[in-house]
Each structure stands twice: as C-alpha cells, then as structure tokens.
C-alpha cells in the first residue's frame, strides 16, 4: 500500500498521536479509565498500522523480533519484580504500601510500575502475534537437532 499517497500521509500523521494517546492511557490509568492492557493494545495498534501501510519488513526494522521478545520478558519481570520488591522492603508479595514513604504514595508507585509492565508485555505480544501471522516465512525454521 506504499503507493497510496493518502494512506501514507494520513497514517504518518496519525501514528505519533496514536502512540501518544497510548502513553496517556498508560500513565493516566490510575486516575481515569485506562491502564496497561488498553495502552499496550493502542500502542501496538499504531505499530500495526505502520506495518500494514509500509510493510512488515520495514516495521520489523523499527522493532526486531529480538527486541519484541526482550520486551515481552521485561514486562513480566517488571510486574513480578515489583512484587518481589514488596517482599524485600518488608511487606508481602505485591504489597505496594511499603514501596514509598506513605501507603498511598506506595500504592501509586506500585500500580504505575505494575501497569507499565502489563503495557510493555501486551504491546509486545500483540505486535508479535501480528508479525507472526503477517510474516510470510517463519522467522526461524531450521529443524536442527543436537544429537543423532
């Protein structure tokens, strides 16, 4: 769809706002509707729009398979890491109260970090799912066995 100039211009114009909106939904999640899951999906939607218009290969130059795989892991570890931080600071697992000086401050810190972890992993998963289905050839398919 590279040759359709309207699609190209409009999507180029829209994508930054989509990504920005994703970040708004992400960081404003503890005050209004939103949160990590929605933000992740919106962010991935912006990326997928780019992939549809300019091709999956071009999009993969921005975020390679290795990067998305890494992001998948980072998100999960951020979430569970916040839980472990709760233990290390003297609370129970996922106890946000101990994360800052006051319990309310702690709840803020905790939920923002946890939701950020969710956002990263969801965005990376949706992008991975899209690219796996859209990519023509499997990224790694050498059937090689260790022994025999």
């Amino acid at each position: 769809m590279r040759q359709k100039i309207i699609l190209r211009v409009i999507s180029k114009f829209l994508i930054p706002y989509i990504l920005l909106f994703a970040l708004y939904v992400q960081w404003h999640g503890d005050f209004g509707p939103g949160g990590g899951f929605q933000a992740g999906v919106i962010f991935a939607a912006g990326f997928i729009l780019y992939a549809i218009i300019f091709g999956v290969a071009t999009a993969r130059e921005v975020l390679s398979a290795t990067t998305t795989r890494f992001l998948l892991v980072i998100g999960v570890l951020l979430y569970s890491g916040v839980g472990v931080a709760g233990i290390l600071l003297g609370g129970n697992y996922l106890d946000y109260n101990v994360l800052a000086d006051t319990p309310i401050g702690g709840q803020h810190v905790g939920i923002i970090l946890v939701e950020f972890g969710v956002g990263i992993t969801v965005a990376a998963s949706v992008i991975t799912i899209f690219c796996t289905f859209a990519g023509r050839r499997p990224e790694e398919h050498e059937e090689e066995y260790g022994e025999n």
Partner: protein
Amino acid sequence: MIAQHLPILQIVLPLMAAPVCMVIRHPQVVWIWATLITFLCLPISIALLVQVMAEGVIVYELGGWAAPWGIEYRIDKLNAFVLVIVTAIGAVVMPYARRTVDTEIPVSRVYLFYTMLLLCEAGLLGITITGDAFNLFVFLEVSSLSSYVLISFGKDRRALTAAYRYLIMGTIGATFYIIGVGLMYNATGSLNIYDLSKIIPELGGSRTIQAALAFLTVGLGLKLALFPMHMWLPNAYTYAPSAVTVFLAATATKVAVYALIRVTYTIFGTVDILEIVPVQDMFMVMAVIAMFVGSLVATYQVNVKRMLAYSSLAQIGYMMLGLSFDTITGVAAGIVHLFNHAAMKGGLFMALGAVAYRVGGVRLEHMAGLGKKMPWTMASFVAGGLGLIGVPLTVGFVSKWYLVQAALEKGWWMIAVLIVVCSLLAVIYVWRVVEVIYFLPASKVAQEAKEAPLSMLIPTWVLIGASIYFGIDATTTLDVAFAAARALLGDGG
C-alpha cells in the same frame, strides 16, 4: 524472613524464571537454569509440608489484602502434599529431559521448551496453592496453555492434532469451570474458597448452586480426563515428547484431581447438596467404568506409550473411586494414590523415553529383546509394571489395599471384587510387554541398542525406587494422606 514468604516463592520462582529462559536462549545454559530452579522449588515445598504438618494451615495474603477481598494462598495438609508431588516430579524430570530434548526438539526451540516446562510447573503449583477460586482458574490457564505448547513439540506430526484436540477439550473444561465460579460468585459474592465453604451451606441447595456444582465438576472432569471425558488424553500422552509425557502424566491430572477434591469436599463438603445431587454415586460409576475401559483398551495397544496412557485412565478411575467412598479411608486411599501413581507412571514413562532415545520408537516391536540390551531400563519398567498391577511391596499395593478396605468398610464387597478383577487386567497388559522384552529375540532396530545413559537411568530409578520404598514403608505418605482426609471430612466423616 524467607520462611514466611515460602508460599509465594514457590510460585514466583518458576514463574519469573520462565521468561528469563527466553533471554538466555542458549540450550545448555537454559537447561542448567531450569534444572536449578526446579531443584530450588522442591525444598520449598518440603519445608511447607513439614511446617503444615507441625503447625497447621498456612495463610499468605497477596499484597497484604485480607482474605475475602484479596487473594490468599492457603496451604493445608492436602495441598502441601500435592505441592511436594509436583515439585518432586519437576526436579526429577529436568535432569532427565536434557538427553531426550537433544533428539526430540529442534535446537532453535529448546529454550522455548524449558520456558514452557517451567511455566507449566508454575501453573500447576499455583492451582494447588491458591485459596481463591478465580485465581485457580488463572493458574489453570497458565498450566493448560503451556501444556498445549509442550505437547505440540512432539516430533510426530500427529502431536499437533493431539495438542489441538487437548486445546479444544481443555478450553471447554476451563470455560465450564469459570462458569461454575461465576455462578457461585453470583450466589455468594465471594471467590475465596474458604469463605465459600462457609457461605454455601447457608444457601442450601438453590438452583444456582446446583448448576455451579455441575459446571465445576464437568469442567474439572474434562481436565482430569475422567471417563467419558478422556478422549484428549491418550493421543496427547502418546505423541508428546518423552519428558513432557513424564511430567504431565505424573502431575497434570493429579493436580486436576486435587482441584476436584477442593470443590467437592471443601466448597461443597458441608452441604446437603451432595445428597440432593448424588455426585459421589456418579463419580463411583464413572470411576469403575474408567478402571475397566482404561485397562481393557490398554490390553490391545501396540504402542506401549499409548498403552500406559490408557492405563493412566484406569488409575484416575482408582483415585476417583477412593473419593467417591466419602469416608476417611477412601479419600485417604485416593490421595495417597495421587503420589503413588505419580511415582510409578513417571518412572514407567521415563523408561519408555529411554527406549525411544536408544531405539527410536516405543511400539512393541521396538521393545523386542531389549531385556538383554538395556537390562536396567527394562528392570525399571518391570518394577513399575508390578506397581500398576498392585503386587505387594509396591506402592500400587498400598493404594489398592486401602481402596479395598474402604469398600469393605462400607460393605460394598462388589466394588472390592471389581478392584481386584481390574488389577488382573493390569497383569495382562503388563505381561504382554514383559513377554516381548524378555522372551522375544531382539529385532533389527533393537540389535544395536545400548543401555540408557546415566542421566536418564538415575531419574528413572529415583521414581521407581520411590515407588518401591513407599510400597514397603508407606507410613510417611499414609500419615499425610490420612491427616489430609481427616481435615477434609472432619473427624466424624
């Protein structure tokens, strides 16, 4: 400080270690990492069991939120015992897995294999440890999704259809479970299992609660492959990679049985509903049919792995039969059989994995004459087979002894006879394999077979050894099982 956080570490350790595998990616390093984690999980669960036996129920509130609102982990004797089974099998399977993975999984996907295996363990432990009905569903999905992937790793292309079929059946099961949880929540406003067990008796046998019980039992029945909801199991076990079959056969159905015990005995244990809807009688009928159908079908299988899969169906029947008695001896027999069967079947599938590794297949013709070529592996197979039959001095005997005793206590001598007859069927299918192993000349493929490598033999013998040790001295396992059964039924039961 660590001691009070053991319940959560039990889950978080494998759960966090799994994504780390995705970063490491190097096959050997990932294996070392995964093995290390499973080795750490085992002492945690043992420490929990010891603590529960000494001091009673352990409660851990996640995020510091109190029970009916927050999620709590609640460990009593029953689930502490199941935790030990799962972590022990995990710790034995990991060292065993390396050799089989070399030949069965493409190098580029080995890291994914271990990621999924750790996730599956985390999910199964989560189902076991949690005290929250919805949280149980989440972990059910974690373990199920990873086991679908694990089964699809099988080298045979039929593994894909087997995994797909399991996916469909498993999803229906999980959906039914969550519908049941939804109905309970609708009627009680609570998701906490302990809380539910107190609220539900007050509601009596309302239609909503009855429907909830129906959905929960059918959903979990699918998961634990209770006859006639077992159709996914034989192919899944047959075509999955060897290490996966060992792990799933020894843990996944056991954990599902545990979940069913929780539902019927903890949540609905004190309700008259079990008299309105004769769940126990239904369990008994299905259990007896499962015992016979499983054993009969096993007797004419050519693929030994599939034979053992059908034998698993029969063994699940024994566990459910124990539960259906609704007496302390019966339930204890069912619980102790969770452990006993995990040890025997795990060991047997490991022996088959070694055959697949050396000979390249596990059909009867592959095993011909292996008695001389792989004496230790075949000896372990025979020892495990004797356990399945229920020969004295094996764990199988202990389970069946208490099952028969429970049947006689109730005066149901017919059931006792059926148990014995069903054991005779086990003699037939085990003997068929033994005959081929020891009395037939080695086939062409088996000519060059060598004894299995030590990294496979030792885990096999650890499990088979356990199945003999706990058959001779069953006090430890029986003490825990009886204590758990007493706690479930109340002393009067």
